[in-house]
């Protein structure tokens, strides 16, 4: 374990590794999480990026990263990570790079890839016990192409492919559970608006070897339809209302790192977002609101305090 533990907000890094000048939207919750994560991971990181919003981070000749970046097809980022990891291992074994030049291999994908198209490759990488970090920025839809719904879209949300008074008819897939079922080294949920919880988890992941899987809920002003200034407020509400449980899986055990007490009603979170406006206008959809609330309540009923 490193001795520089992050215990308080004050311990968070004051210099930021991720370069400014990226083409991400103003107020991007995914970029917020990424820059916080990169600060903890450090410069010796190579990113393997599946197609998505963050593909645009490195558009030739510009990059916000301080090291290499590899672009893969939407379903193949973990396979790309395997290749990079293998190459590094061979270089290390042959003594062509010294151990201190080793890199952490980080897969960076959106929810479209993590929850859907890339699931098979991810499952295989966990089966092979690949030593890598998977970072999913989850903005609950195919944001880069105009917010079509994905398997991460929450029930009732309007997307460009789920319009109408009921929104998206499906339910958000529990990717945490799917990943944890593979029994990898580490699985955690994080959010940029809770930087201390995030930093502690990334610090922990950094000290472990094997597949380390991180899901960052990423408030998205463009796709969720709200003023960019609300990104942090919406993120905090996602946690306090219980919509986004902060938790980790390690050694076969799931621990909630934040137990929201006196959860405010979920509608406090929903009503700030245009994608849920049809639940309140022209008339309140009591049935749908109750259904969403009941599912959150049911989740927390099954959580036993640590």
């Amino acid at each position: 374990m490193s001795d520089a533990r992050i215990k308080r907000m004050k311990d968070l890094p004051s210099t930021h590794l991720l370069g400014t000048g990226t083409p991400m939207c103003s107020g991007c919750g995914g970029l917020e999480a990424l820059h916080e994560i990169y600060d903890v991971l450090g410069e010796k990181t190579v990113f393997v990026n599946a197609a998505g919003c963050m593909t645009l981070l490195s558009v030739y000749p510009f990059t916000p990263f301080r090291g290499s970046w590899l672009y893969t097809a939407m379903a193949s980022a973990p396979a790309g990570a395997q290749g990079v990891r293998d190459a590094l291992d061979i270089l290390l074994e042959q003594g062509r790079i010294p151990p201190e030049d080793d890199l952490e291999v980080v897969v960076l994908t959106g929810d479209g890839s993590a929850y859907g198209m890339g699931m098979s490759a991810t499952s295989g990488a966990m089966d092979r016990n690949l030593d890598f970090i998977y970072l999913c920025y989850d903005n609950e839809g195919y944001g880069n192409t105009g917010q079509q719904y994905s398997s991460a879209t929450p029930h009732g949300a309007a997307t460009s492919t789920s319009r109408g008074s009921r929104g998206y008819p499906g339910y958000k897939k529990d990717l945490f559970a799917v990943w944890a079922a593979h029994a990898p080294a580490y699985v955690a949920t994080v959010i940029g608006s809770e930087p201390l919880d995030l930093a502690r988890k990334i610090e922990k992941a950094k000290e472990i070897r094997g597949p380390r899987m991180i899901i960052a809920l990423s408030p998205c002003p463009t796709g969720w339809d709200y003023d960019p200034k609300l990104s942090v407020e919406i993120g905090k509400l996602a946690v306090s209302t219980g919509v986004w449980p902060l938790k980790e899986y390690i050694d076969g055990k799931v621990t909630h790192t934040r137990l929201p007490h006196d959860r405010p009603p979920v509608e406090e979170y929903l009503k700030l977002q245009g994608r849920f406006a049809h639940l309140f206008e022209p008339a309140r959809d009591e049935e749908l609101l109750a259904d969403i609330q009941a599912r959150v309540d049911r989740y927390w009923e099954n959580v036993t305090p640590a």
Partner: protein
Amino acid sequence: MYRIRIHGRGGQGIKMASRILGTALFRSGFTVQDAPKYGAERRGAPIFSTVRAARATGPGQAINERGIIHRPDLVVVADDTLLAVPAAGTLLGIDSGSVVLVNSHEKAATWRERLNLDATLLILPAGEEVEDRAELPHVGATCAGAAACLLGVIEPEALAAAIAEELAGLGEPVVEKNRTRALAAFTAMMDQRGVVREGTAIAAEGFTPPSWIELPFEDASISAPDIRAAANSVQVRTGLWRTLRPVIDYDHCGKCWWVCSTFCPDSAILVENGLPVIDYDHCKGCMVCVGVCPPHAIAGIPEYLAQAQDALETETGESNGPDTADR
């Protein structure tokens, strides 16, 4: 054929403006082509869309041109701060026959003096949209309404019908809001109705292609060299996306830099000697810092006012403002 270019920022409804104008022209008997610029630019970034419209009087009236409009008959600038941004390309190809319509708080005389253009420059008085971000998506419809009037070939009924058609999916309240603003802008420009003159269409027959410069094939190491600089995206000045500027009042700053500097999605708040410093070359103006600052020491002010203040302070020699460009 009319060639119209509409400039604005992502999120102002510029793509929608070209669709509304295109549909209104189509409903007025024209053959129409309209398209937004496609790129990686996001909310706040300079973007543009184009409309070409030819009188559909018979065969052979198809629009043969494609792509970017290089010689516009009408340029609409939805956000006047873009005029000073070369990368936005608002003034590309303007000549004495062009009409430039600027959505601005300032007078036409001011912009004529600043830009020294050999073109007709008109002002669409800027409304609350520039102050209140929630109103931003209506800028596009407002500009489309003003442009429709300047063209002189669109009746208000066709404009209203085009708005209803294009925005139908967003519900009647949204349609109504946009229609009201567009028709008000149409009425506001009545003095100048029909001021835009139609440019001549270039016939496909006898078209001389541009004289291409032949570039020899180069080795990949020359034509696409490796970029080894770390974090060189700092050379992209995303600060020009900003319509609101966060300003720290250091008298009230609690020196808790770990709050604003961590939450800033763009890593655009630096920490210097224990104080947060906003990097205005890259701040996109999301205002997240304004919301999270514990002592409420950061205020958001409209960028155009902030720039006017900067100019004033530079003139009077009081301050040049914090220069973060070379950090």
